[in-house]
């Protein structure tokens, strides 16, 4: 690992200021992703600003919903009574990711910022536009079984690896961030992550030095009928091939409102408004779910090795909706 300066931040303002002042500085929270990437020489900060002493760990009812602190641990968030009761989709999504040890370490803010697990991004001997802009994409013509089928560009076919953000998107969460000048702004979770386009080196829309302070969950009517389905190569402790965050509001067997977000298929959590439109005001039935699934994957453009994700994605959507509506 390359040398770096270690700084313990004592408050949000000085933490943001410290990082903003140095283009090569990074925040350190749980460390589960950045330390790994530093060992691999993919991330090369010359300064780490440790946020672990900041008071951003609260999870509390707010504005009819729940606000979760950026530095609350994933495990604490998943198991918080308010989340388990009102946002079981979020609990399921968090518990579908990583291992118990990692969930004890990883924070909510850090989880949103985890970087792709594309093997070309990790391997410094390979070209990667995300790691080193302008070097090309190794995965585009290489091994791309794990890669994107939606929203990719010639510059980058990597996928966002997380689970939590998929559920947050289905719940229409809002990310609260604070900049070095103390300026606070909110970013709807759907606008937080980016598609690769011509700038795959940018995973999200945070400015350098901006710090996530909380994630706000609005009041939700989905608690009764939601389900997070993650399909992976082994039963546990693996990244998604395809994941589905499904949430329904049902009324007399009909869908009043639906949310369908896919994970493992794009550079960001992929919300399918097409699927949601196909579900709305229709009976909650397998037939209707199939139509929604077809709509969601209609524009999929698979790569050489991941055409399986199209059919897998459709079946996963149907199954997740069946579970969410308690038909299966």
């Amino acid at each position, binding site marked *: 690992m390359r040398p770096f300066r270690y700084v313990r931040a004592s408050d949000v303002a000085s933490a943001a200021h410290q990082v903003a002042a140095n283009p090569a500085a990074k925040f350190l929270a749980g460390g589960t992703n950045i330390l790994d990437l530093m060992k691999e020489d993919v991330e090369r900060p010359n300064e780490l600003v440790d946020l672990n002493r900041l008071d951003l760990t609260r999870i509390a009812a707010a504005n009819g919903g729940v606000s979760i602190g950026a530095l609350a641990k994933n495990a604490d968030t998943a198991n918080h009574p308010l989340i388990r009761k009102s946002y079981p989709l979020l609990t399921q999504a968090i518990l579908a990711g990583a291992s118990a*040890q990692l969930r004890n370490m990883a924070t909510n803010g850090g989880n949103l910022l985890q970087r792709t697990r594309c093997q070309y991004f990790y391997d410094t001997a390979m070209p990667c536009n995300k790691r080193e802009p302008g070097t090309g994409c190794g995965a585009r013509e290489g091994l791309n079984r794990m890669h994107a089928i939606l929203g990719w560009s010639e510059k980058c076919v990597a996928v966002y690896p997380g689970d939590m953000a998929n559920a947050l998107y289905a719940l229409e969460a809002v990310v609260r961030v604070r900049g070095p000048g103390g300026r606070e702004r909110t970013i709807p979770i759907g606008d937080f992550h980016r598609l690769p386009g011509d700038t795959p080196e940018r995973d999200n829309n945070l400015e350098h030095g901006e710090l996530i302070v909380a994630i706000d969950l609005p009041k939700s009517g989905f608690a009764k009928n939601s389900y997070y389905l993650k399909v992976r190569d082994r039963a546990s402790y693996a990244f998604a091939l395809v994941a589905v965050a499904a949430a329904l509001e049902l009324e007399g067997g009909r869908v009043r409102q639906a949310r369908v977000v896919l994970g493992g298929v794009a550079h960001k959590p992929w919300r399918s408004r097409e699927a949601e439109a196909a579900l709305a005001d229709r009976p909650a039935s397998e037939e209707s779910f199939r139509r929604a699934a077809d709509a969601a994957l209609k524009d999929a453009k698979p790569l050489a090795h991941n055409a399986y994700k199209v059919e897998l994605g459709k079946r996963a959507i149907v199954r997740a909706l069946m579970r969410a509506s308690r038909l299966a």
Partner: protein
Amino acid sequence: MDESPPPDDPILTDDEERLLDELGIVGAARRRFLGYGIAGGVGLFALRLLASEGARAAAPTPAAIPASASGLEGAVRVVVKINGENRTLDLDPRTVLLDALRERLGLTGTKKGCDQGQCGACTVIVDGRRVLSCLTLAATLDGRSVTTIEGLAKGEELHPMQAAFIRHDAFQCGYCTPGQICSAVALLEEARRGDASHVTEDVSGAPRLTDDEIRERMSGNICRCGAYPGIVAAIQEVHSGKRAAKTWRFVEPEELARVRKEDNEAV
């Protein structure tokens, strides 16, 4: 099913006699060692493991390693409670907890497996929660409390989870075992709190710790030897407080002779 002889009357195979001789465990030490081992239904491999760990514990490694690296540029001072004892360390900021434990404090029970958060061999308990020491920057632990595999036993008395692992032969090569045991100890606390897992059917309620729940909750600890059945049995036993049937025993000489004869006939 437990066919081990009582501890005061140990009957050893020739191989076991030879192993103990090689290890220099004789006389009173041998009797004590055997009582300890056989009471837990310990096998030949476990004997070897316990003996080598014992030998290492007796070696004066920690004192020989300076706890403070003087003249270190940008060093960070941390005071961490390790297994109940405050330790002051001046660290290169890059030092992860795993390396601080092994290289600076001589606590080699915590194992370095993948060193990138994928295998769980380096699992330790920080402030009561299991974490991966390979991805924990030691500098972040100032004022915190770390329990490693060396801190679980009370003197000569093994932690119940350690004893259960031995009883259920929950390891083969033993490399992942310290991480498995630390993970399992913390798992029971999580289950006691009512934490949910990926396989919990209804996350709004507190789940029962079934074998499936244990398997999912231990999925962050990989065992290359595949000792999983024993690991699940050991955890289930400590959780339930009910002694589970031992699923293995030493082979009887007649059985061995029969198998050898069959092998020869097959050739």
